[in-house]
């Protein structure tokens, strides 16, 4: 089928301001949007810049705005996105654009690193040399937040983040949740303190954009709500 791709292009090395690149290509309905972008890059204009690796929604490289919504280009199909023969592609919002779809991810990863994203447990290891035990119920408690692939779809769809880039953002809160609610971890209080900062969880206005954007179907807003609840009550359950 025919597809008209409208891509927001910007290369600060030579462009004064962003411009729209328009491309007419031939695709299969079941192609990924990523395949369509590759069709442009590989056969029409090799200067188009984007990140990608796995091509099936598990590495988190190719978050972009597809028809105005944050999506992974490799996880949506042309037939589902095409409207009036067209798909519009822009970089994710709220980040410095380096080239076309490639934005500066450093502040995003800095927020991630700030919440102590690692298990803390200083009690002695089991004397038999085996695993620490954890019940299936305790394991299930934080299952949803373990799915996060750090793609930034959520954070860059959040109005609070657009308003203030220092806001730690939903992705970092999801990552904190993954440890706060892990029965094996002992640093929940420290993480909660970090998240109670002015740029922590309280900036979240429960707008649900993040939940809609998450390609891993993590209930992001619910996750944030549980962290807020833990802060309010001092109880982690």
């Amino acid at each position: 089928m025919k597809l008209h791709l409208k891509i927001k292009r910007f290369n600060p090395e030579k462009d004064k301001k962003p411009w729209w690149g328009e491309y007419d290509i031939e695709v299969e309905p079941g192609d990924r949007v990523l395949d369509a972008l590759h069709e442009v890059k590989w056969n029409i204009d090799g200067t188009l810049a984007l990140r990608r690796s796995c091509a099936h929604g598990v590495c988190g490289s190719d978050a972009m705005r597809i028809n105005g919504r944050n999506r992974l280009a490799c996880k949506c199909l042309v037939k589902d996105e095409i409207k009036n023969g067209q798909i519009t592609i822009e970089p994710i919002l709220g980040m410095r654009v380096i080239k076309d779809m490639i934005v500066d991810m450093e502040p995003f990863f800095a927020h991630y690193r700030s919440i102590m994203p690692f298990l803390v447990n200083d009690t002695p290891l089991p004397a038999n040399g085996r695993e620490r035990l954890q019940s299936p119920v305790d394991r299930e408690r934080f299952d949803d937040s373990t799915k996060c692939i750090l793609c930034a779809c959520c954070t860059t769809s959040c109005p609070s983040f657009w308003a203030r880039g220092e806001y730690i953002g939903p992705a970092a809160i999801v990552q904190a949740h993954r440890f706060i609610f892990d029965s094996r971890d002992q640093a929940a209080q420290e993480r909660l303190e970090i998240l109670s900062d002015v740029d922590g969880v309280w900036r979240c206005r429960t707008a649900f954009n993040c939940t809609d954007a998450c390609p891993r179907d993590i209930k992001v807003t619910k996750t944030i709500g549980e962290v807020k609840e833990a802060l309010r009550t001092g109880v982690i359950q």
Partner: protein
Amino acid sequence: MAHYHQFDALVVGAGGAGLMAALYASKSVKTAVISKLYPTRSHTGAAQGGISAALGNVEKDKWEWHAYDTIKGGDFLCDQDSVDILCKDAIDAVIDLEHMGLPFDRTPEGKISQRRFGGHTNNETKQAVQRACHAADRTGHMILQTLYQNCIKNKVQFFDEFQMVDIIIENNKCNGIVALELSTGEIHVFHSKATMLATGGFGKMWKITSNAHSLTGDAPAIMLRRNLPLEDMEFYQFHPTGVYRMGILLSEAARGEGAVFLNDKGERFMERYMPTLKDLAPRDICSRCIYQEVQAGRGINGKDYVYLDFRPEHINKWFAADGNPKRVDAHYLETRLPDIIEFARVYLGVDPITEPVPIQPTAHYAMGGIPTNNDAQVLADERGSLVEGLYAAGEVACVSVHGANRLGTNSLVDLVVFGKRGGIAMADYAKGASLRPINKDAVYKDAEGDLAAIRNSAGTERPAAIRKELQTMMDEKVGVYRTGQGLREALSVIKGLQARFRNLKIDDRGVKWNTDLTEAWELGCLLDLAEVTAAAALWREESRGGHYREDFPNRDDSKFLQHSFAWMSNDIQIKTKPVRITRHQPVERKY
């Protein structure tokens, strides 16, 4: 001018192998990790089904059984002392990962949960054993996350989105690497005492593949150019269950949970080929059986694919037929296999809970690669000479623990076991060594010159067109089935593509994030690796594990119980190295 850095230990690649090595090296020496992707985007994150270790959490198991299964799965080409290390150390490695925080699924008693996987058996009853430790069907994602988290905790230094373009080797001693900083286009020289290559696989030689776009074999291709050998390149694994036409993997965990293959007649055809293990026979065998069904006209609608069936009521029917008391329902499958169920829904529009899923074999895993010893030290030749200061681990390396065909779940074991051994060995070496002098300007100019030649190339050939031709040809001629005739044709096509590669059309002359340039450079790597793969496959006139020659359909231990070592000079040169056999003499492989 180039940027210049010095480290004791340098790790190239931030997948499971690289991160494990970095974690252990950084405990005692100054360590850095260089990766062309953000670490969490490495393809280890795509691994689904599990990581095996004879924990015996659910039923009786022994690491010796795991070792024998691995050797038999590898069609007796594995070095058996290395396999012993793999399977013995797997137990501690998995426990280590749990202690680091990895959220494994749990048994009712709270232990690490385990499930069945292809080729893993109880050696007494010959039946499938539950050995694969798992976290849903995103075990690799959890390993990658956990290792990265622990690197952050231990303050390992990272150079993210830096692409290695050369390795500094002089007189069989490695002194570091040269990398391109993607965001600036600037060249960095990394000078080090010990360097590890952990750049993963190179499945992008083929069209239908489970591998990421980034898996282009940069490190092994550079090794060839540096006149160093690659081992067992003819052995590449085609996984039986790729999503039809796309190659996205549907983990063997599906069959571990009870799924079966069906042909156009609705027949569970694996019963016919492998009466004991059936659908859980090793991958090389299942892939060939699928092709035989297709050849016999029993592909679905006569086409080139079959079904993977994991509708719960069907699984229960097969369980009953096999005398297995276990039963499953939709909820169970959705919690055990959420991601692969979603892949089928998203990419095929097929719901596996109610419909069978169209699948075909997909290029998946490199058994061969950069030859190493048991401490991940790189070998300079078939006699065992070392490249001092150079290490390799993970899919890029060939220890060889996988022989002619890797068993499912054994790659993740390989990453953590040999990644750790390599990390420790690097640190030990770096503590007693000093930096050898290098000529910074010369290595910088070499690398810059190579890249400039591509960037400024004013020819007529689009890299994408060459890549597509390579991939299509490799699917046809260097796939599951091979013939001498087809391989000779493959070599001549590759020569032609290499010639066209010297006449590239490059649109992007910029410096920052020039992926037109890096993709073209990567294509050069794939072309060289394809040549070595086809040449080694032509040389090996027998069928063993993942390498099947229609003109030589039998295994020939008298001639080919040998590893191949291939060099790329003007032509490919091949030498051999005997397989190390300890306890298990080769026997015919039956399941």
